[in-house]
């Protein structure tokens, strides 16, 4: 058991408090210093803390926080990335405006992100999910450029649709469960008469967050516009909230076969769509964003497998492991773009080399951390899906090759530019963690190092990359026409249509009926004022009353 609710509450309260602190006038100047500190309690809890549940009954509708090994992994990886990105931001954001606002919302988003992993009841989960979704808007639009505002708007719309849909799903499930606790809710979904509706609604909510194609459109728009540390946590930690939600809420076992298949194929399609769309991008962070879409696709597919698997927790653990690596690695890649900005072209080569290693790790090159996690994940798939998963690595490799290629052009023009320690240290720490951590955690996923290092597994890690290299080489040589896919792909036509519709200004006003009195009572009154009329009426009244009285 967790020792009382205080510690987990502190995990959430500390970032929130720091966020509030940051906006105080006196603290504004040093607001950024909060960033690396805020996630530390979470990290501490995840690494050193006990596992179990704790209730804070008065908060929300009865808050329950809890931690098991899997959520601790999510929590730790996220908190660690948040910490590194925060550290990075202290230097990277130093000269921008509204730092206190940035800090405040960073902390709020952070608290939400951590809350998602800790929540054991649906309400806390939802509240955290909201907290991680909406304040992130502020992080995205921080630069306040037109593009950033557009990206923010689209993000917001999608996030709100997602929130609403998710809440609707929760409500439908909540009635069935008669308890707000996630296990009960999850169990209730499988028996609920509207189970499919609930799952659909939840999937929309979580899928938007997790970048599930076709709900992914905000990612390639938001990532290039957000400040680099924000992109890092968006891609590395925040999207994982959606994934974690699926793990938490989706029931497993019999009856879920359909949803399993759906998720597997949706995920796989996403994985490949991300690759193809990403290859056409020219913005370096857009490429990374599509890579995230692709990678999340794989993870969602794995979740899909788990739903109908014999041992779902095992598969979920594999996903968790994969996600931890991906988070750190992708975070590192994003950070690297920031470092590149501050590095003169000539001195870019060491960075490029390191980035190449991380890219290979993401693509699953054997002996890297990514290689280990990919091998582990592939163990969940069977049949043609397994092949597709394996083959996707070729695409990932290609995509990251493109990234690597584009990164070279990010270098600073000023020869004297220099990325300080505060920028590079987090980058390298993230890279180190990404490369090494999976090996440490293999046992958690129930796998042995030996399994990873089995030749067949090594081989299946290498051949896609080789294939990718061949294709890449061929492409370089042939220079095929690049289809112009704008960032955000599907959203662009939708946006255009909406804008056109909005031009026809819709107004909700009822026509006001103009009533003109048809009969002027004054005329009647003038008539009645005349004694001859009134007297006649009086007589008529008297003479009329007589027979009426006899009736």
């Amino acid at each position, binding site marked *: 058991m967790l020792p009382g609710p205080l510690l987990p509450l502190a995990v959430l309260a500390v970032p929130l408090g720091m966020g509030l602190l940051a906006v105080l006038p006196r603290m504004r100047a040093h607001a950024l210093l909060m960033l690396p500190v805020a996630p530390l309690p979470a990290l501490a809890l995840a690494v050193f803390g006990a596992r179990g549940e704790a209730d804070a009954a008065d908060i929300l509708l009865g808050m329950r926080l809890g931690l098991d090994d899997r959520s601790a992994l999510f929590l730790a990886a996220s908190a660690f990335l948040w910490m590194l990105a925060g550290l990075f931001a202290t230097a990277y954001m130093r000269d921008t405006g509204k730092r206190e606002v940035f800090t405040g919302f960073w902390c709020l988003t952070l608290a939400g992100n951590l809350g998602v992993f800790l929540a054991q009841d649906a309400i806390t989960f939802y509240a955290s999910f909201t907290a991680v979704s909406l304040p992130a808007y502020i992080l995205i639009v921080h630069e306040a450029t037109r593009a950033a505002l557009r990206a923010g708007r689209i993000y917001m719309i999608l996030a709100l649709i997602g929130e609403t849909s998710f809440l609707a799903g929760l409500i439908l499930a909540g009635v069935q469960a008669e308890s707000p606790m996630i296990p009960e809710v999850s169990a209730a979904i499988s028996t609920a008469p509207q189970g499919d509706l609930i799952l659909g609604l939840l999937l929309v909510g979580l899928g938007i967050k997790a970048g599930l194609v076709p709900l992914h459109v905000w990612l390639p728009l938001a990532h290039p516009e957000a400040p680099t540390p924000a992109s890092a946590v968006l891609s590395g930690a925040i999207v994982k909230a959606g994934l974690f939600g699926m793990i938490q809420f989706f029931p497993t076992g019999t009856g879920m076969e359909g949803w399993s298949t759906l998720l597997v194929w949706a995920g796989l399609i996403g994985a490949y769509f991300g690759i193809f769309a990403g290859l056409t991008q020219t913005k370096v962070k857009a490429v990374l964003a599509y890579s995230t879409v692709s990678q999340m696709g794989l993870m969602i597919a794995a979740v899909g497998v788990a739903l109908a698997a014999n041992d779902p927790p095992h598969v979920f653990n594999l996903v968790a492991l994969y996600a931890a690596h991906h988070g750190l690695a992708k975070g590192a890649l994003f950070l690297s773009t920031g470092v590149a900005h501050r590095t003169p072209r000539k001195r870019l080569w060491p960075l490029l080399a390191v980035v190449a290693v991380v890219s290979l790790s993401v693509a699953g090159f054997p002996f890297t951390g990514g290689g280990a996690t990919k091998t582990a994940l592939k163990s969940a798939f069977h049949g043609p899906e397994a092949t597709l998963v394996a083959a996707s690595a070729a695409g990932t490799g290609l995509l990251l090759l493109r990234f690597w290629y584009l990164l070279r052009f990010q270098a600073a023009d000023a020869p004297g530019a220099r990325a300080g320690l505060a920028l590079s240290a987090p980058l390298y720490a993230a890279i180190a963690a990404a490369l090494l951590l999976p090996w440490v955690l293999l046992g958690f996923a129930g796998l042995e190092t030996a399994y990873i290092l089995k030749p067949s597994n090594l081989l299946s890690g290498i051949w896609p990359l080789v294939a990718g290299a061949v294709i890449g080489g061929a492409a370089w040589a042939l220079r095929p026409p690049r289809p112009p896919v704008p960032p955000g792909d599907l959203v662009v036509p939708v946006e255009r249509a909406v804008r056109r519709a909005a031009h026809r200004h819709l107004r909700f006003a009822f026509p006001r009926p103009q009533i003109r009195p048809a009969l002027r009572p004054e005329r009647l009154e003038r008539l009645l004022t005349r004694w*001859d009329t009134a007297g006649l009426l009086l*007589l008529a009244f*008297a*003479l009329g009353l007589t027979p009426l009285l006899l009736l």
Partner: protein
Amino acid sequence: MIESVFDILLCALIVGVALAAVLGPRLFSSVVFFIVYGLFLSVAWTHLGAFDVALAEAAIGAGLTGVLLVAAVSRLDRLGVKEPAPAPPVARVTSALAAGGLSGALVLALWSLDPDGTGLAPVVEANLHASGVRNPVTAVLLNFRAYDTLIESVVLLVALVGVWSIADERHWGGEPGLRQHARPDGVLATFGRLLPPLGLLVGVYIVWTGTDDPGGAFQGGTILAAVWLLLAMAGLSDAPAITRRRLRLAVIAGPGVFLAVAAAGAVGGGFLVLPTEYAKPLIQEIEAGLALSIAATLALLVLGPPQRGPR
């Protein structure tokens, strides 16, 4: 049978005169017909045996009302007022139908009456001895239903206050009516000198006799008022200014005495109770007061509000 013929003839005359009064083309002739109508009615009342009413109708209905109307006609003539256009034929026909309908309904109602009558004559007769007077009408007026008469006397006062209240503000405090300029040797002046002593005598007598025979305060008071009016018209006596205390006391004397008697009775245990033994003197006292007030009030009513400022 002959009596019936006479009745019918009289009634036909009355109806005819009434029609003439109502429909007469000239206002003045209408008023004259109205006076004649009143006199015929007086005859009718005599014929019906209601001598008190006959007297009252002659004095009040025909006499004073007539004078009032004649005076009004002459005032209007002097003001040169316009006569409104006659009603259109449609209105006449409708009105005639409606009025005829009313009469018809009344005839119907009369027809359904019990022919033997259920009046209060026997009850009055039975209680007459306790009333203090011998004229049953006076008994009803001043004892059995004295309360009605009290209010009635007040009504006259109300009318007078009302008439005075529409005086021209500038003329407040002046004398009522227009200044009369009768030629000192004219017929009116002669009559004015001749008639008053006689009228005074008749008037007082009628008041006095009212307790036992037909007559009473109202009839007598009216005659007294006529006397005063004659004097005023003859220019022999100016009415006192309306602010004069004595005039006002005279006006309220009758109702005042009446009210005092009523109040005294109420204190003693019965509102307007006239103990049998004191009934006659009390009634006479009331009659005297009333006659004075009625005479003054009626005369002043006819004279109207002051038409000239105080001197």
